[in-house]
């Protein structure tokens, strides 16, 4: 597990222990990776972050199209051996995204249950709001780059 914000470490460790998730990524909607567990290569984090954020953005648009103002709580893709859970949640620092890959040792129900706790604990533990930053396409890429360097060193 690697975290940029130390106050995320404890809730994330509890989430990983309780949910038995294989991979987890926590990022801002601007693309800054806050924490990750299980990824070994920065390129994988980059892909997962970009794809996950893209899927959620697409789903939010779909919700608007079908007039579902509250949006969808989560997006789940269930494969034969693994599943992916994607969900956004509000924090004092803006909207964050969680991407969780889980296997047969866990379940959608367990990930849902403990992800809700993770979100609540992050909300409660978050320090005062940082200045709002622009969310632009080029900003997303730059933020992602910066955070990956921090998470993986200079690899």
């Amino acid at each position: 597990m690697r975290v940029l914000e130390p106050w995320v470490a404890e809730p994330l460790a509890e989430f990983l222990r309780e949910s038995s998730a294989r991979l987890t990524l926590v990022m801002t909607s601007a693309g800054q990776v806050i924490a990750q567990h299980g990824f070994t290569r920065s390129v994988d984090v980059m892909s997962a972050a970009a794809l996950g954020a893209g899927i959620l953005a697409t789903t939010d648009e779909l919700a608007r199209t079908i007039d579902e103002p509250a949006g969808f709580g989560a997006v789940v893709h269930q494969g034969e051996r693994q599943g992916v859970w994607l969900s956004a949640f509000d924090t004092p620092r803006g909207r964050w995204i969680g991407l969780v890959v889980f296997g047969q040792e866990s379940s959608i129900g367990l990930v849902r249950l403990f992800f809700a706790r993770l979100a609540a604990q992050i909300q409660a533990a978050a320090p005062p709001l940082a200045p709002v930053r622009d969310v632009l396409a080029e900003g997303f890429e730059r933020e992602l780059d910066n955070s990956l360097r921090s998470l993986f060193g200079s690899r």
Partner: protein
Amino acid sequence: MTIDQWHAALREVTGVTGVLGALIVSAEDGLVVAETAMEELATADVAALAAALVMRVARCTSAMDAGLPQTAYLVGDRGALLAVAGPAPLWLVAVARNDGELGRLRLLMRDFADVLR
């Protein structure tokens, strides 16, 4: 069994003294398929945890070469969770207080699980 019959069965289980709720759970994904419960019972949480328990129980009976579990009962100081296998991957699950009629609940759930199968 139709969905309406499921709900009727769940209502009957919930009618047993001390029962806080009854639900049909998919053990594979830990999600609620049907439910009847008091408001204070977080049925989605019950489904996730009951499915995790059932999976653990299955690993345990498999380790002892004892076959697939048909029932799993967790009894604590204050309450109990009873789970009875229906047609795979569904399980009938009930949560009850410890002062409830656990014996009657167990028999009723076994009857319904037989019908579900």
